[in-house]
């Protein structure tokens, strides 16, 4: 039985209130972890002078689950489900990024079919995440209908993902050296049908938001991030491109055969919230282009790298031959034989650059796995960006930065 003990732990808000003089010029407002507009469990302590913010201090860690510590105790393949839960709005993209990082460490070159399927997964995840980003952003700014339109499309994407991986959300689809399973028959046909009707839906959303005076009034010239500030704060993804810096990892350091696809990278001009919204809308259309090219391009062939020591044998071999059984047993219990060394691999996730720094000492577990989360870095600009804006602009700015706390806190 524990007795009740009073401990005076001062957090930022109460400490700040100690400093405020009795006249009470500045108000400390806690935009708490449970808030409909903070896109997850983000707590921001705002110091207000009337309606204008003078200081903003984000308080993270409400969703910290210790993924990096867990990674040191999991084999390479066992960590894949944890990557689903990083950016939970685009789980396929996280799976791809992680397995590409481990394959870079192993020195694998994927088969052409696996590359194309992974590109399709990434772009589908990008469409899904941007639809949610735009939908929730519009809802935060007051346009409730747009949210429902984008989520209807996301439901169709979830159906596609479910037929592909078995789960709508926690996909764990990729494996080191390939994919969990091949495409189900007829999947590319369903994907094509979905892509045929998607541009009209995007046009509907566009017509509702892009020229709406309310939306433009709430987002134009709000939260302007100049390009040098954006680079200094390490922003990546649509946030950086909205500020005018044309840095897209799919073009700059192509992976998975992205150099063979014909697409453009939208870049904003002023770096305000409206530009970031426009960049995301245009990226949706470019992702549709990439997906159509990928469907045409999809080659036949194996999906796994040819490395019998580290790739699971087909189940028929496991159940009938001794070598297959032993191989399956060794790979599952001992993990994949990774070489010693360190790699960094960054993928262009919908939120930005998701990077994995892997320090390996050989064997089946990583020695250190650092997840470079784009949302964590994107949020770091808040203490610099928010002061000077009003409280209602906070919602617009948070929505335009489009972060996800699962990734931010890991």
């Amino acid at each position, binding site marked *: 039985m*524990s007795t009740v*003990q009073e*401990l005076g*732990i001062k*957090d930022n808000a109460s400490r700040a209130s100690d400093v405020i003089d009795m006249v009470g010029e500045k108000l400390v407002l806690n935009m708490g972890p449970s808030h409909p507009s903070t896109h997850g469990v983000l707590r921001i302590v705002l110091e207000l002078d009337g309606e204008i913010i003078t200081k903003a201090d984000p308080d*993270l*860690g409400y969703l*910290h689950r*210790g993924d*990096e*510590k*867990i990674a*040191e*105790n*999991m*084999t390479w393949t066992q960590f894949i489900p944890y990557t689903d839960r990083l950016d939970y709005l685009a789980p396929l993209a996280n799976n791809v990024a992680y397995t590409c990082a481990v394959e*870079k*460490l192993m*020195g694998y070159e994927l088969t052409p079919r696996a590359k194309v399927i992974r590109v399709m997964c990434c772009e589908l995840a990008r469409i899904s995440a941007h639809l949610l980003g735009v939908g929730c952003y519009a809802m935060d700014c007051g346009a409730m209908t747009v949210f429902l339109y984008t989520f209807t499309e996301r439901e169709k994407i979830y159906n596609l993902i479910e037929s592909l991986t078995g789960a709508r959300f926690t996909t764990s689809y990729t494996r080191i050296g390939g994919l969990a399973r091949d495409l189900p028959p007829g999947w590319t046909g369903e994907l094509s049908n979905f892509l045929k009707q998607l541009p009209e839906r995007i046009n509907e959303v566009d017509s509702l938001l892009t020229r709406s005076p309310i939306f433009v009034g709430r987002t134009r010239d709000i939260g302007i991030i100049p390009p040098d*500030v954006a*680079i*200094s*704060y*390490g922003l990546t993804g649509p946030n950086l491109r909205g500020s005018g*810096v044309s*840095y897209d990892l799919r073009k*700059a*350091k192509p992976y998975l055969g992205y150099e063979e696809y014909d697409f453009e990278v939208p870049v904003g001009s002023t770096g305000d919230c409206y530009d970031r919204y426009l960049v995301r809308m245009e990226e949706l259309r470019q992702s549709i282009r990439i997906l159509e090219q990928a469907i045409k391009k999809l080659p036949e062939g194996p999906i796994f790298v040819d490395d019998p020591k580290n790739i699971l044998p087909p189940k028929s071999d496991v159940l009938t031959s001794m070598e297959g059984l032993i191989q399956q047993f060794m790979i599952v*219990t*001992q*993990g994949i034989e990774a070489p010693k*060394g*360190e*790699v*960094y691999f*960054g993928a262009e996730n919908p939120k930005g*650059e998701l*990077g994995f*720094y892997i*320090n390996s*000492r*050989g*064997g*089946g*577990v990583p*020695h*250190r796995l*650092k997840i*470079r989360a784009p949302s*964590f*870095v994107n*949020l*770091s600009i808040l203490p*610099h960006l928010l002061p000077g804006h009003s409280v209602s602009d906070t919602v617009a700015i948070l929505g335009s930065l489009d972060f996800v706390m699962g990734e931010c*806190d*890991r």
Partner: protein
Amino acid sequence: MADLTALNESFTARFPSKIQIRPLFRGETTWVVERAELLQVLTALKEQGFDLLIDLSTVDNFGDEPRFEIVYELCQLSSNQNLRVKSFISEDDNSVSSVTSIWATANWHEREAYDMMGILFEGHPDLRRILMWEGYPFHPLKKDFPLEGKATEMPDIAFSRPAPLEGGPFVTAPSDHVIEREPRARPTELI
């Protein structure tokens, strides 16, 4: 991938015997810099155009001396070249200069490094915990901190009992012996 040999040569000329260039692994360049020269090398790299600090990680090599590694992942936007700069820090003297004045993004990365590994950063404007809450007594990512967490005496600060892992994660470990590679519970008997 563009070539970094010109950069390697110019920097080893400027900082003789302070930068050790590791051989290329998977197409990536890694420099090992001594702790005293780290801030100068990084400032010089920023002037050379490496204006994007992608990541700042820390590695705990428990049992080795020096214990910690701090790893900076830089990118030169003009040429899309990545460079990794790292430095070894010993446990007794675990403070490094902060690079917040060079790249603003280092602010939060260094706060996380302090929070998770206990590495102090001199010159950091606001070094406090970021993912764990203030007042939490431990640095969780160190190797001597067990996965299930440590009990604390302060029930208001942290849990009083470690997480129920029922024998610990059954995990393999790198080794040449097959027996060592079997997954088994590996309790941290390091405390």
